[in-house]
């Protein structure tokens, strides 16, 4: 075989590759002067479908009626990796709407989403109108590249019928009360296997992620310089010790066997909705599911139980986010759309009513047009609580949470003998994995 050919191919390949790999430097977006007329087309990508996509479409129509010079085209069903790939290839949307905060760290630090500070300053947008926690998960390393678009808040759902049967007056307010209630509510089969579980303490069950339970003890994920705080923060140790004691009381194998027979979280067989689990951690979107799939269920909503009574009422908060791509052909129009969707209180209330998530500005929270029933109000309160927290953005996305999650899997299975050593090791693993993000 001709020896020259492979070399030539290699050269061609390398050249083509370098040409492709050298993504252009972020454009220096010149911010227009205040009061300039804005016009053009904006392309919006999001991941919602069906009912939620329709809701977004109707609000965008409102936007277009008040901004007749701007046309918006919407593409649904686009997830984070599609957006990342498109932007990396030099194309993609003008505005991206993501359903999680995982990408904020990377998109802010790499400039994939542009810095919104100049726009915010020029248009005098008051960021204090936004809930404090939502501000936390839309900026990274001092750069604000995103704005919050509707939020989720997590709390405790409890089965009122089972509570009455067990003689428990109200929802638990401390972790000890939760343990006591869980034990009282648990019913076993004649052969010793579990029939009804008061509270299922496994970390990988439904919404029991460590992030969702962290506000119960006020645990911190990252230190101020972005390193893992897991070993240093004693709150984690408290949480894990509490959780393991409850797991051991049930019996890990018995719990896994019980859990294996439970239905899918979002199906009609959801264990809480079927009364197989009496107390469950979940977010406000569960309300719509219960209304739909288990309308006869008598349930209550309460904040997470906490170790410190002063912190009671707090919960985990997260949400969807909007940003402007660095490849946007019309960043000014894109900013107008984002500004409308995230700071126009009427638009936010309409969206919240349609999608049944939590509006993110203080004014919209108090707006009488917002459809609120007592259960939804409980979540609004959790959302507004100053002690509520979120998971800080990171350049490696959800890496630190998932790495800790694998440690928790071993922990609850009883494979970690020394908790302190285990947490220190988890720290190391988390720091190591976070360096992937750069």
């Amino acid at each position, binding site marked *: *075989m001709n020896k020259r050919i492979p070399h030539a191919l290699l050269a061609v390949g390398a050249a*083509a*590759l370098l040409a*492709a*790999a050298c993504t252009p430097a972020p454009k220096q977006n010149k911010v227009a002067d205040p009061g300039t007329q804005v016009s053009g087309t904006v392309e919006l*990508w999001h*991941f*919602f*479908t*069906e*009912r*939620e996509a329709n809701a977004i479409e109707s609000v965008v129509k409102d936007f277009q009626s008040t901004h007749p010079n701007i046309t918006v085209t919407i*593409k649904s*069903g*686009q997830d984070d990796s*599609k957006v990342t*790939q*498109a932007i*990396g*290839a*030099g*194309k993609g949307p003008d505005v991206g709407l993501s*359903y999680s905060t995982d990408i904020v760290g990377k998109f802010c630090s790499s400039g994939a989403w542009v810095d919104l500070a100049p726009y915010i300053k020029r248009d005098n947008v008051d960021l204090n109108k936004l809930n404090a926690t939502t501000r936390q998960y839309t900026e990274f390393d001092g750069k604000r590249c995103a704005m919050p678009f509707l939020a989720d808040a997590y709390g405790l759902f409890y089965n009122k019928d089972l509570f009455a049967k067990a003689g428990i007056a109200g929802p638990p307010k401390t972790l000890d009360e939760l343990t006591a209630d869980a034990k009282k509510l648990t019913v076993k089969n004649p052969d010793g296997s579990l029939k009804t579980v008061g509270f299922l303490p496994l970390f990988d069950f439904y919404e029991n992620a460590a992030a969702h339970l962290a506000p119960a003890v006020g645990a911190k994920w990252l230190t101020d310089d972005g390193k893992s705080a897991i070993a240093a923060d004693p709150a984690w140790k408290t949480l894990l010790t509490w959780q393991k004691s409850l797991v051991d009381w049930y019996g890990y194998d018995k719990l896994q066997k019980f859990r294996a027979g439970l*239905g*899918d979280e*979002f*199906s*009609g*067989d959801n264990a809480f909705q079927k009364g197989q689990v009496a107390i469950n951690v979940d977010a406000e*979107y569960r309300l719509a*599911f219960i209304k*739909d*799939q288990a309308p006869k269920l008598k349930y209550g909503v309460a904040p997470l139980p906490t170790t410190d009574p002063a912190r009671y009422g707090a919960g985990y908060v997260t949400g969807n986010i909007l940003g402007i791509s660095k490849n946007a052909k019309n960043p000014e129009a894109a900013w107008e759309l984002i500004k409308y969707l995230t700071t126009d209180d009427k638009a936010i209330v309409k969206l919240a009513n349609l999608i049944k998530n939590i509006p993110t500005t203080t004014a919209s929270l108090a707006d009488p047009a917002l459809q609120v029933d007592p259960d939804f109000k409980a979540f609004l309160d959790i959302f507004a609580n100053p002690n509520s927290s979120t998971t800080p953005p990171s350049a490696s996305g959800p890496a630190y949470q998932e790495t800790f999650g694998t440690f928790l899997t071993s922990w609850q299975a009883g494979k970690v003998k020394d908790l302190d050593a285990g947490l220190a090791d988890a720290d190391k693993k988390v720091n190591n994995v976070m360096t992937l993000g750069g």
Partner: protein
Amino acid sequence: MTATLDAPPAVLQGAAPDRRIRRQHRLAWIAKHSIAIVLAIMFVTPVVYLVLISLMTSDQALTSNYWPDTWHFDNYVRVFLVTPLPRYLLNTVIYAVLATAFMLLSSVPAAYALAKLRFRGRNVLFLTIICVMMLPPQVVTVPLYLMWARYGLTGTIWPLILPMLFGDAFSIFLLRQFLLTIPNDYLDAARVDGCGEWRTLLRVVVPMARPGIAAAALFQFFYAWNDYYGPLLYTGENENSWTLSLGLASFHSVHHVDWNLVTAATVLTMAPIIIVFFFAQRAFVQGVTLTGVKG
């Protein structure tokens, strides 16, 4: 003597009119068919379950209630209302048919060259072609996607079809192995008769290699038909180019999936290729004619 699928070759049956031997044959016949029936039940049950889900309400899907409480044949209608299935079907057909045709055009000659022609570097080339399969797709797609984006072909199905004009490693490997099983005597006979290599391939080899070619074609066709990640990557941003497999994902929201509609759409996606397979089986039946060796 031909070996067809409907009648095992006489050799496998043996040939003795003795009563005892006939009874042995009957027991063997019963045993084989019983095993086949039990296996068939096991194979078909999950598919039946998929069909059952497609007839349930969304709330009952994926619950422990495996038999529909209420029967919803209208799910099959709803599927057409929610997504433009006919357009996805058209895209899928174009993709599968063209990919298969192009694959055959480019891969059969290459496989023949690797199996039956002599040239320096043949083994190296063969190994290189196998190597093509060894790079994980997640990693191959990044530079290829950048390349296609440069040519403005993202958002269409062409990045999926055009590469088939340049050979498909899996198919080349498969075809080569099949072609190896064809005795060289037939090729020598053709060459003696004055056929060039191309005529030898087309007139002599292809008819003999029909089962193998049919297998490779079926493989490619079904792969393209059910391909999800390819269309997701290249057509994801342009709904007009979506294929059926992407259409299945239309029923997903962030927290909710209409599994009954997903399975209904799945059944609709599977129906055409089941029919294709049922009729394509004949390609196996027809042609294994390997009459004795020369002389």
